[in-house]
C-alpha cells in the first residue's frame, strides 16, 4: 500500500492550513505573558485539528494500532506533566524532545521499509529518510543523556573521553557512509539500521562531555533538532503539515540557541566541542591580582540583615544555586518583607542563569513572584549603580567583573550583571569554590561585598528571622 500526501484528501490538506495558522498565531501570542496561555491552547487546538483530520482521512484503513498508541501516549504524557515537580522542568523538556526525535526517526524508518516491500523508493525519499533517522536518533540519545545529567543520574561534570574528537570524526564518517549507501540503494536495510545505531552513539558522545552550566545551549539545540527531524520526516512522507510545524520549531530552537551562546560570548562549536571549564584549569592567568589579594569579608545573617533592613532599593540576582537549594519561596518571602519596609525589590535575570533558557523565570513564577519584577540583563544593568544592595543567590560567573575588564580571563567578553556597581553586595554561596568556568570571581574580594556562606535556603531563612528582629 502506498502512502503519500498526493492521496491525502483535500479536506485533510485544508485542515492542515487551519492548523498551521493556529500554530503560528499561538507562537505570536507567546510574545506576552498576558496572552501566552491562550496562545498555547490555540496551538494545542491546531494539533487536535491536524490529528483528527488525519485520522478520518480515507488513507487510514486501520484504527486499532492508532488507538492503542494514542491512549498509551496520552496517559503517559498527562501523568508525567501533572506529576513532575516544576523544578524538574529542564529534564522534562529534555526528555519530551527526545521522544519527538525518536518518533520522527521511527516514522521515516517505517516508511522506507514499507516502500521497499512495494519496490518503489526514489532518491529524494531516501535522502530525507537518512536525514530524519540521523537527526531523530541523535536527538533521542542526546536528550536522554541531558535528562540524566539534569536529573543527577549521569555525572553533571563534563566527562571527557580520551581521543573523543577522533572517535567522533570516525563515527560521523561512518554514519555518513551508511547514509550514502542507503541513498544509493534504499533496499539496504542493514545500512539503515547501522546508521541509526551510529547516530544513537553520536548523540551520547556529543552530550556527555558537556557540563551543567552549558545545558541551556544543549536543550535549546535539541529542541531545534526535534523540529528539524519532524520537518525531514515531512519530506519523507510528503506531508506539508510536518514540514511547516517542524520548521517553526527548528527555527525557534536555533534562535534560542543563538541567544544562549551570545549570552555566554561563545560559539556553538566552542560549547559543543570546547570542554570549557575542565581542560583550561591552567590557573596561570591570575586575573586582577590586586583585587584577589584582598581577603573576602564573611558576615553572619545578622550583619547582612541590618544592611538589608535599611536598603531602599534591592536587586536579587538568582542563579542555579537557587534552584539547587529550592530557595525560591524563601527569597519571595524575604522580598515581601523588604517591600513591607518600603524598599523597591527587583530581580536581575541573566539569560543563561540556570539549566535551560528562562529557568529562573519559571522557578520564581512558581514562588508567585510577579513577572514584571523580573528584569533582563539589558533592562536592569544600569540600575545596579543606583541599588543599595544586590543579593546574589547561587550565581557566580555571570557576576564576575573580570568578564568586562580582564582580557586574559576565559569568560572575558561575556555579558555580566553589574553587581559590583551596587553600593553593597551580599553573596549567598556554599563555599569559595569557583563557578563552572573555573575562574575566581573578583566580586567576592571587593570592598563592598559581603559573603554569607551556607546553603542558600538556610541562609535566606536566617536572614528572614534576623529581619524580623530589626
Amino acid at each position, binding site marked *: *500500500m502506498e502512502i*503519500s500526501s498526493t492521496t491525502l484528501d483535500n479536506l485533510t490538506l485544508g485542515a492542515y492550513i487551519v492548523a498551521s495558522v493556529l500554530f*503560528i498565531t*499561538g*507562537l505570536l501570542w*507567546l*510574545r506576552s*505573558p498576558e496572552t*501566552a496561555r491562550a496562545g*498555547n491552547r490555540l496551538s494545542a487546538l491546531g*494539533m487536535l485539528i491536524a490529528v483528527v483530520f488525519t*485520522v478520518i482521512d480515507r488513507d487510514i*484503513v*486501520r484504527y486499532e*494500532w*492508532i488507538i*492503542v*498508541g494514542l491512549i*498509551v*501516549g496520552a496517559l*503517559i504524557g*498527562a501523568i*508525567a*506533566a501533572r506529576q513532575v515537580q*516544576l523544578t524538574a*522542568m529542564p529534564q522534562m*523538556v529534555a526528555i519530551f524532545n527526545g521522544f*519527538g526525535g525518536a*518518533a520522527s526517526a*521511527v*516514522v521515516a524508518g*517505517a*516508511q522506507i*521499509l*514499507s516502500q521497499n*516491500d512495494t519496490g518503489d523508493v526514489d532518491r*529524494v*525519499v531516501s535522502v530525507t529518510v537518512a536525514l530524519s533517522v540521523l537527526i531523530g536518533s541523535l536527538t533521542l540519545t542526546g536528550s536522554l543523556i541531558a535528562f540524566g545529567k539534569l536529573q543527577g543520574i549521569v555525572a553533571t561534570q563534563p566527562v571527557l573521553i580520551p581521543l573523543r574528537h577522533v572517535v567522533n570524526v570516525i563515527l560521523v564518517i561512518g554514519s555518513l557512509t551508511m547514509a550514502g549507501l542507503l541513498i544509493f540503494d534504499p533496499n539496504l536495510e542493514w545500512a539503515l539500521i547501522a546508521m541509526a545505531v551510529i547516530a544513537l552513539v553520536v548523540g551520547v558522545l556529543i552530550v556527555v562531555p558537556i557540563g551543567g552550566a552549558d545545558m541551556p545551549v544543549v*536543550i535549546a539545540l535539541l*529542541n531545534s533538532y*526535534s*523540529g528539524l*527531524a*519532524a*520537518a525531514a520526516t515531512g519530506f519523507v*512522507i510528503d506531508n506539508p*503539515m*510536518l*514540514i511547516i510545524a517542524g*520548521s517553526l*520549531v527548528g*527555527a525557534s530552537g536555533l*534562535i534560542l540557541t543563538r*541567544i544562549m551562546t551570545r549570552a555566554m560570548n561563545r560559539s556553538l562549536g566552542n560549547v559543543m566541542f570546547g570542554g570549557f571549564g575542565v581542560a583550561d584549569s591552567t590557573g596561570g592567568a591570575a586575573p586582577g591580582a590586586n583585587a584577589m589579594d584582598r581577603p573576602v569579608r564573611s558576615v553572619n545573617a545578622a550583619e547582612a540583615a541590618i544592611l538589608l533592613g535599611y536598603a531602599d532599593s534591592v536587586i536579587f540576582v538568582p542563579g542555579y544555586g537557587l534552584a539547587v537549594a529550592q530557595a525560591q519561596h524563601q527569597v519571595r518571602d524575604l522580598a515581601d518583607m523588604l517591600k513591607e519596609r518600603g524598599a523597591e525589590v527587583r530581580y536581575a535575570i541573566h*539569560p543563561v542563569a540556570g539549566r535551560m533558557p*528562562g529557568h529562573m523565570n519559571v522557578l520564581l*513564577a512558581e514562588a*508567585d513572584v*510577579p513577572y514584571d519584577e*523580573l528584569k533582563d540583563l539589558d533592562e536592569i544593568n544600569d540600575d545596579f549603580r543606583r541599588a543599595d544592595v544586590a543579593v546574589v543567590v547561587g550565581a557566580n560567573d555571570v557576576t564576575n567583573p573580570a568578564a568586562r575588564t580582564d582580557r586574559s580571563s576565559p569568560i572575558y567578553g561575556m555579558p555580566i550583571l553589574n553587581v559590583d556597581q551596587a553600593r553593597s553586595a551580599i553573596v549567598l554561596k556554599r563555599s569559595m569554590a569557583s563557578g563552572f568556568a573555573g575562574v575566581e570571581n573578583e566580586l567576592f574580594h571587593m570592598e563592598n561585598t559581603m559573603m554569607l556562606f551556607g546553603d542558600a535556603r538556610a541562609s535566606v531563612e536566617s536572614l528572614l528571622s534576623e529581619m524580623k528582629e530589626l
Partner: protein
Amino acid sequence: MSIEELLIALAVFVLAIFVGYLTITRVPPTLHTPLMSGSNAISGIVIVGAIIVAGSVGGLLGAILGVVAVALATINVVGGYLVTDRMLRMFHRSDEERR
C-alpha cells in the same frame, strides 16, 4: 516525489523557517522556557506521520513501528502542552491575583 513536488516542499520549508524566525525573535526572555516546551509540543506534529504509518502500512513490522511512533509522539504532544499550560498558569503581574 518528483522534482516539482520537492521544490514545492522546499518552498514551504524555507517560508516556514522564515515565519518561525520572525515570530520567535520577539519572545521575551521571561517566556523562554514556555516557548521551548510549547514549541516542543508542536514538534510532536510528527504524530500525524505516525498515524499515517500506523494506519496504512501493510505488514506487522509497519504496524509495530507505527504504534511505537504514535505513542512516543503522543507523549510529546500531550505532555508538552499540559506542562506548558501548567507553567504559564503561574505567570502573573504584581497587580493581579494569582490565576
